[in-house]
């Protein structure tokens, strides 16, 4: 049993060699091509990432009509914006956004795995995949948020969303005070993936 709690000495080197060997073999056997993995990765670097979600949030902050449409039909509102094709693609087929207000704070979790809205947020950060976060977020969300540095008054209701079926949730954070003079692009630069999953607030 003790070996179960130890890591092998070459933990990362072993995995690195193994994944390299696996990819080689899959190419040799005709499962994928030489550039297939690079192709998949570049999509997330250039087209689908948290930069998309940040643009959506910034637009909602400056355009109340858009914000209303975003809250009532997230996909249709996103389709109004000038994004590359694919905002309703893999892991974005059914998106829903929930709004933080002075009285309500939303937190997204996936206790069974790591469901995450790829087109708007890209790939999930490690904290989101952490079994400890997933275990605790549903029972003690306020304590978990405090660990992330978000200290909420008890009067603020916390709504926790467990993504256990086919909808991918994200959060419309509150616009920080004192940002009236900022442009939409400057506002988008303030928005983090953490803010869009509810473990951070946006600060100017």
């Amino acid at each position, binding site marked *: 049993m003790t070996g179960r709690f130890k890591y092998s000495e070459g933990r990362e080197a072993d995995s690195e060699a193994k994944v390299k060997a*696996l990819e080689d073999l899959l190419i040799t056997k*005709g499962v994928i091509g030489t550039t*297939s993995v690079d192709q998949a990765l570049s999509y997330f670097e250039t087209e689908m990432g948290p930069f998309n979600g940040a643009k959506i949030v910034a637009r909602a902050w400056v355009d109340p009509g858009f914000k209303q449409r975003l809250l009532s039909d997230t996909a249709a509102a996103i389709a109004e914006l000038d994004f590359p094709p694919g905002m309703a693609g893999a892991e974005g087929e059914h998106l829903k956004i929930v709004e933080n207000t002075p009285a309500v704070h939303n937190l997204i979790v996936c206790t069974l795995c790591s469901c995450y809205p790829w087109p708007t947020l890209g790939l999930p950060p490690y904290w989101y995949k952490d079994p400890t976060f*997933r275990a605790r977020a549903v029972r003690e*969300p306020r304590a978990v948020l405090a660990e992330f540095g978000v200290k909420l008054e008890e009067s*603020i209701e916390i709504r926790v969303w467990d993504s256990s*079926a086919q909808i991918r949730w994200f959060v419309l954070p509150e616009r920080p005070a004192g940002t009236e003079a900022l442009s939409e692009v400057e506002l988008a630069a303030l928005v983090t993936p953490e803010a869009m999953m509810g473990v951070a607030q946006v600060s100017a």
Partner: protein
Amino acid sequence: MKLQHMLGGIENLGPVWLEPRPFVEQWETRIFGIHVAMMALSTHLSSALPGYDMASVPTTFKHEWTWGHLRTGAEAMNPFDYFKFRYYEKWLGGISSFFIEQGYITEAELTELTERYLKGSPPTRPQKDLPAVDAQIIKYLREGDSPARPAPQPPAFALGDRVVIKDVHPAAHTRLPGYLRGKQGVIDHVYDGSYAYFFSTGPDGIGAPMPVYVVKFTPEELWGSMSEPNNVIFADLFEAYLQPAEAAAESAARSAA
């Protein structure tokens, strides 16, 4: 019964790992990319989406590979290992085993090549251009594989209905978070139409299209006196996991009698 199905609510795990990066080692990106390729080449796409012809994609991959398949592997792990290993270490283990078990590669050749790399052999990436495979990967990422379907029957529950979450039999894979079993909630939203899950969970009950709901739970219902003040928990749940609160109460009364 699997610990992985019961994560929500486990105590004494210590602080959350606050790491904001999606990948902490460069090698992790490669196994993620392999998984995306498998999703994009999965044979289920031919039936999941109209106008899809996977047979014409020039790959030797001839299996279904969906989230359900990947998750079933993670849920089949020793629960201590599940906590011990990082996310993509689990993926690397599960996906390698899948390719070995299904006969795409042998364990011996994977071990042999891995050891060669560990001994410092220069990379020997084979050159094989498969532009149609690469194009299919982008097509899958752009189009996705929506499980939404027209409703086969009207939803059994309506907004505001009180429901009790079923305690279905344990299975290899589930989308019912364990901490909700036997708990009472209220239907907060009824999604339009129905949703398939591209992996039958057998006795657990999902796979074929069925209505999906947002069910709202109070922390007092879930955690009693341990609950934190002023929060509410919402979960997306397939209809197979729900029963009317009245029926659950009657059945409890019958078994008590």
